[in-house]
C-alpha cells in the first residue's frame, strides 16, 4: 500500500548528526576558546574564516606586488637609482622581466641586478641627451632665445 499524502508519512530523524557537526568543527580545531568545541559558536566563526580567506586570496596578490616593489626600490637605491627611474628605463630597453623576477634576482643574483641597474642608468642618460637636443637655437623668429651678457 503506497502512502501518498505527506502528513501520513513517518517523521524521519537524523542518524548522522555527529558527522555533519564534525565536518564543520574540523575547520575550527585551531581556534581559541569555546569556539573550537561548541558547534553553535563554531559555525559563525568558521563562516567568517572562509569569507576572509576568499578575500585574502585577492589581497595577497596586491601585498606581494607591493613587497616586490619595496625590495626592488631598496636594491636599486644601493646602486644609486630610484625605483621609478630603474623600472621605466628597463621597460624602455625592452627587457620584460616582471617585478617578482627582478626582486628574486636582486636577492639571489646580485651581480645580475647590478648589470640591470647599469643598463637602466645608461638608458636614462641617453634619454636625457636625446631630450636636451643639439644645444643649438631653434629655427624661427619667435622661438629665438635672447642672450643678455
Amino acid at each position, binding site marked *: 500500500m503506497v502512502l501518498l499524502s505527506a502528513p501520513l508519512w513517518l517523521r524521519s530523524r537524523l542518524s548522522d548528526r555527529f558527522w555533519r557537526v564534525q565536518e564543520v568543527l574540523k575547520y575550527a580545531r585551531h581556534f581559541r576558546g569555546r569556539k573550537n568545541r561548541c558547534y553553535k559558536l563554531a559555525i559563525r566563526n568558521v*563562516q*567568517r574564516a*572562509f*569569507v576572509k*580567506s*576568499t578575500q585574502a*586570496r585577492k589581497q595577497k596578490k596586491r601585498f606581494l606586488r607591493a613587497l616586490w616593489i619595496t625590495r626592488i626600490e631598496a636594491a636599486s637605491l644601493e646602486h644609486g637609482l630610484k625605483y621609478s627611474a630603474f623600472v621605466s628605463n628597463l621597460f624602455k*630597453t*625592452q*627587457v*620584460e*622581466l*616582471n617585478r*617578482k*623576477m627582478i626582486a*628574486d*634576482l636582486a636577492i*639571489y*643574483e646580485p*651581480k*645580475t641586478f647590478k*648589470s*640591470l641597474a647599469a*643598463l637602466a642608468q645608461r638608458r636614462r*642618460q*641617453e634619454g*636625457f*641627451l636625446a631630450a636636451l637636443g643639439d644645444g643649438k637655437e631653434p629655427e624661427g623668429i619667435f622661438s629665438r632665445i635672447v642672450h643678455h*651678457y
Partner: protein
Amino acid sequence: VAKTSLTSPPWPEVKLPDPVEEAKHHAEVVQKVNEMIATGQYGRLFAVVHFASKQYKITSEDLIMMDNVLQAECGDRIRMEKVLLVGADDFTLIGRPLLGRDLVRVEATVIEKTVSWEKINMRFRKKRNYQRKKIITNPQTVLRINSIEIFPCLS
C-alpha cells in the same frame, strides 16, 4: 663673463663615452664571453623562463608547478622556448625581450598531473540568510627541469 647660478643648467651634465671605443669594448666582451661558453668555463646556469603566463627563475634539477593543465603525458620531454635571461657566475645574457632559440636550450619533463588542495570560496551576507559555499580544486602540473644549455653563437 662671470659665472652665475643660471649660466649652466641645474641638472648634472651627462657625457656618453666615445662610440668608437665603446664598439671596440663591446666586441671584446662578446668575444670573451663566446670563448668562455665554447670552452665551458661556467658553473651552474640559471635562466628566467616565461611559462604558463608566469615567469620562473630555474636551474637544472629544479621542480616547477603550474596551476593549469598541460597537453602532454607524464614523462614527456618539453623544450621551453621563451627564455628572458640566462646567467652564470661570471656573465649574464639579457634578452630584449627574448633570447634567441639557437642560443639557449631548456629541457623539462612532466612528472605528475594532480589536483590542488580544496580551496573554499564562501560568500556571506549577515542578517540576510545569504551564504554560498563553493569548493575549488585547480588542476596542477609538476615539471622537472632537466638541463639548461647555451651555445656560443653571440654576435
